[in-house]
């Protein structure tokens, strides 16, 4: 192992040396690629050098840099949904070239599923990655009309919902706490509103969504299964604009515009109003109840000069529910301050300060003596320094450092006031420090072969007050290779190791707001995963159709699970409830996608298996993970029937969720208690659902004020998909037991009015 690490470091250094030696004969063209209509930076736009195989793509800030031998060139800039542009460049010296791309007139109205260069899926040296544009997410029919990023993500290959209607998702058989969800680089610890029925992400504020199911860049880590990287809009720097909507359960409003020549800002908020309707009831208790969530995204960016730009972004969201005798609230807050700095045209850097908190509060007010409260949560502060060095078209080096200070607030609460009969309890705060160094290189070996390799090093310290109580370090190698047959097809392979130092204590398969994060310690090793993937990528019909087939194998060690009947809430000896073991999953993912045109969408199919073996669970035998659903099919389609009417539909099928059924019973206290099968030995009935939506544009295409009505029908054929199965004793004949299925939704229609100007 040590030997292989040395080889990687040696190769990296040699590549750097060769590149640096060639610098003095070259010049660099660099700049930002932007949307001409609103000035938003375009992430993943393709810049190719005509007549060569060289090129690059813009980074997360829309920045590109290409170093070439001095001479004359033509750059071809492309991005799906935008008119391709060719720019001549006379490259005798380093040149700054900012480029604005015009949205293609026809495609303004169309949904663009993937926001990237046309054949990016074939040519980019990355795999197991799914991208969604905000427009694609908006086109997917949504529960109660609430457009939802995570619900769209759940229909991608290799991804599945953890339960009907929830925002939890499993990637390639992993747990829902094994997904790193970032909003503008800040971790979002609970991505759910209203017990999971809606996610915390307001689609109006989102620019770009990327899901890494494997092959996670070395700059990211800390979770075993996936990275969901969500970037918010920067704000229109061309004109003042507004967008919003009125729905059945919520309304939203987004305002954006330029602040002088160098800055722009965006503010986006939404709030549900179920509690408003409670005022119309005759019941006084209900009248005085609160039931809502709100969230707000705000971002401002300021371009100091060509080499410096700063961003400040924040998210603030909360759910509140209260009745006369009890109440609760929970929510996330994130804030990121970023500074983009160009040390030179070839050396891009980004420095980020990050803060993220999640907390919940529960209160009951039965009487003065019995009133009590409980609060818990966690808080992160972090710093990231990321560098991209692009010495030529052959190499892109990325390296950086980041640290995060985690503060865990396991719980504090008890009786309220001097009359309280219940005592107070406070679990001491816990701290952890993560220090990370990483370095990667993407290199082109000729015109056909691309290589990517890197290493992430994490030092994790579990801190108890000022002393380090536990130290752990992990090396996480990442590597990938891409062989491009031609512009339309390629094969890729990747390997990645990921480690997870903090995990969720949850006695739930779908997640709840009261789950508790805890850290690795002397007794809890970090979970580790080695993932291997191989894929074939093929585009047809001038890149209109994208086909991908990937197989993967994941081997997980030190997997954490909980003993039977574990007590996780307010348990000072939480670690005693943990059990450890191993797991693996493997699968085949197929995806056929049409990214643009009047009819577009995708079909994804996943064939997979996911098993675990945990000490003292299931008699130490292997058992299906809760997310083992061998067959998973999603069909998503959008059709622009006319300039006025757009139709969308999606159909989802999956094998039933694994479940432990009672196979025997015994009697105590005149009641029957089940005796269970092996863990997850049986399955729920298969899940399938059809959703429909239609969007009717009310305004003329030339009108400045645009509005539309969206009608959606969730679960169109009213399938009664099981959410839970209970076992009951017959009231008339208690010796007879029967099974009862609880389903959440029959069909749910909704209507939303959207506008923008």
């Amino acid at each position: 192992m040590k030997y292989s690490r040395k080889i990687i470091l040696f190769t990296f250094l040699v590549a750097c040396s060769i590149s640096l030696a060639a610098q003095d004969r070259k010049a660099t063209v660099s700049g930002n690629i932007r949307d001409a209509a609103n000035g938003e930076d375009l992430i993943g736009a393709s810049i190719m050098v005509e007549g060569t195989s060289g090129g690059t793509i813009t980074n997360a800030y829309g920045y590109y840099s290409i170093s070439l031998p001095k001479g004359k060139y033509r750059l071809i800039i492309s991005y799906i949904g935008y008119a391709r542009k060719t720019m001549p460049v006379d490259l005798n010296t380093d040149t700054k070239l900012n480029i604005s791309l015009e949205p293609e007139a026809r495609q303004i109205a169309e949904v663009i599923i993937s926001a990237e260069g046309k054949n990016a899926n074939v040519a980019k040296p990355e795999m197991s990655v799914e991208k969604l544009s905000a427009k694609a997410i908006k086109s997917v029919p949504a529960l109660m009309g609430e457009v939802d990023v995570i619900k769209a993500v759940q229909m991608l290959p290799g991804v599945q919902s953890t339960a009907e209607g929830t925002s939890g998702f499993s990637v390639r058989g992993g747990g829902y706490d094994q997904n790193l969800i970032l909003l503008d680089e800040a971790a979002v610890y609970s991505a759910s509103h209203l017990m999971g029925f809606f996610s915390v992400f307001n689609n109006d504020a989102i620019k770009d969504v990327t899901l890494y199911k494997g092959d996670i860049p070395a700059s990211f880590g800390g979770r075993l299964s996936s990275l969901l990287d969500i970037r918010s809009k920067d704000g229109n720097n061309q004109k003042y604009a507004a967008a919003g909507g009125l729905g059945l359960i919520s309304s939203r409003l987004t305002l954006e515009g330029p602040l002088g020549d160098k800055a722009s800002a965006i503010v986006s908020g939404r709030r549900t109003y179920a509690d408003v309707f409670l005022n119309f009831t005759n019941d006084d208790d209900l009248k005085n109840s609160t039931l809502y969530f709100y969230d707000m995204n705000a971002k401002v960016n300021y371009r100091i000069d060509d080499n410096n730009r700063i961003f400040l972004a924040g998210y603030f969201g909360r759910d509140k529910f209260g009745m006369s005798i009890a109440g609760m609230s929970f929510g996330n807050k994130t804030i990121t301050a970023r500074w983009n700095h160009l040390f030179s045209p070839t050396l891009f850097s980004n420095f980020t300060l990050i803060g993220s908190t999640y907390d919940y509060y529960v209160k009951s007010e039965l009487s003065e003596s019995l009133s009590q409260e409980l609060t818990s949560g966690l808080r992160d502060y972090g710093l990231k320094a990321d560098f991209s060095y692009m010495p030529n078209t052959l190499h892109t080096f990325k390296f950086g450092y980041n640290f995060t200070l985690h503060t865990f607030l396991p719980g504090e609460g008890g009786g309220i006031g001097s009359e309280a009969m219940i005592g107070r309890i406070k679990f001491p705060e816990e701290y952890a420090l993560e220090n990370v160094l990483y370095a990667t290189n993407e290199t082109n070996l000729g015109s056909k072969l691309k290589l990517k390799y890197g290493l992430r090093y994490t030092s994790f310290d579990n801190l108890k007050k000022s002393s380090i109580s536990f130290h752990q370090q992990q090396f996480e190698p990442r590597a990938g290779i891409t062989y491009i047959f031609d512009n339309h097809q390629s094969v890729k392979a990747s390997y990645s190791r990921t480690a997870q130092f903090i995990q969720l204590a949850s006695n739930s398969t779908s997640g709840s707001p009261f789950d508790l994060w805890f850290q690795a310690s002397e007794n809890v090793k970090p979970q580790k995963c080695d993932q291997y993937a191989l894929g074939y990528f093929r585009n047809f019909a001038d890149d209109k159709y994208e086909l991908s087939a990937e197989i993967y194998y994941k081997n997980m060690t030190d997997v954490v699970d909980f003993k039977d009947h574990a007590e996780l809430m307010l348990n000072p000896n939480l670690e005693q409830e943990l059990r450890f073991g191993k797991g693996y999953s493997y699968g085949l993912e197929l995806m056929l996608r049409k990214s643009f045109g009047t009819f577009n969408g995708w079909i994804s199919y996943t064939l997979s298996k996911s098993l675990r073996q945990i000490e003292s669970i299931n008699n130490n035998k292997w058992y299906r993970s809760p997310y083992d659903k061998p067959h998973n099919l999603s069909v998503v389609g959008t059709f622009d029937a006319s300039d006025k009417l757009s139709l969308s539909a999606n159909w989802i099928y999956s094998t039933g969720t694994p479940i432990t059924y009672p196979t025997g019973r015994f009697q105590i206290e005149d009641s029957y208690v089940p005796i269970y099968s092996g863990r997850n030995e049986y399955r729920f009935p298969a899940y399938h659902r059809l959703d429909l939506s239609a969007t009717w544009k009310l305004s003329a295409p030339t009108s400045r004020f645009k509005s539309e009505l969206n009608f959606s029908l969730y679960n169109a054929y009213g399938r009664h998909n099981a959410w839970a199965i209970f076992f009951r004793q017959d009231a008339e004949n208690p010796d007879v037991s029967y099974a009862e299925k609880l389903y959440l939704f029959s069909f749910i229609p909704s209507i939303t009015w959207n506008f923008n100007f």
Partner: protein
Amino acid sequence: MKNIPFIYFLTPIILLTLLLLPSSCKENIDINTDDAPVRIVIYGAISSDTTAHKVLITRSAGFFSTSKPQAVSHADVHITHASDTIRLNEDAEHPGTYLTAPDVYGIAGETYTLHVTTDFDNSGKKETYEASSFLPHPSRLDSMAVEPSPLAKQFLQVSIWGETPSEGVNYLSLQLYHNGVLFNDSLSGFSTANDEYLAGHIFNGVPAFMLNQERERSKLNPGDTLLLQVSSITHDYATFMENAQWESHGSVPMFGGPPANVPSNIRCTTHPEMQAISGFFTAFSIRRLEMIYY
């Protein structure tokens, strides 16, 4: 009491879920499962009351079986503590029910061990099963009262005043007799609590039962008698009963972990590797309060 905050904290969560699920519904579903192998079920207790203490021995059955549990007869059953042995004899009218003599009582602070010997698997060789339980010290009960509940207008709550033993965490089970009829007479009504978060081990008007005055069964009329029985139980028995209650309800994805068998404290001493045993043996002390409602 630990389970009081837990229940009240769950209240808003469950209410919210119900509000969010306006179209949720239930329907029967056919489930086909194999039957689990038959296992011995031993369930019994000894208390501080002077009475005939009972141990039930039955066989488990397939979950969708429609008949009552089959009794295990002719077992040799006795309870030991210190150097004493208490014999239990099978009730002639109720096969599988084994009773002590009526003048037997348990002593707080003692440990009792149940011994059962029977040829359960018809192998021709008898197996011996054993379980032990400490008999906890009782709580002091001062008074009880019936008062309006802040939960909802239609409820009256039975509140109690008293003190639990000062050492460690004490576990209680509560039973209420309304005009001599046990109000919480099923597993789902079995009420457990502990004093882990109770300031000073004093319960000063803690609500023990909620009585819905819109239901005939729990409606109180002037002159009705209420007898409150507070049993001091062991942590292991409280856990067993809570787990049994939880499993008999069925699990919900958002609020519960995976279903799991309820562990038993009964062990087969002749085949220590045998896991397939259900039931529990426990010891507990009892205190009572009685009042007339007016």
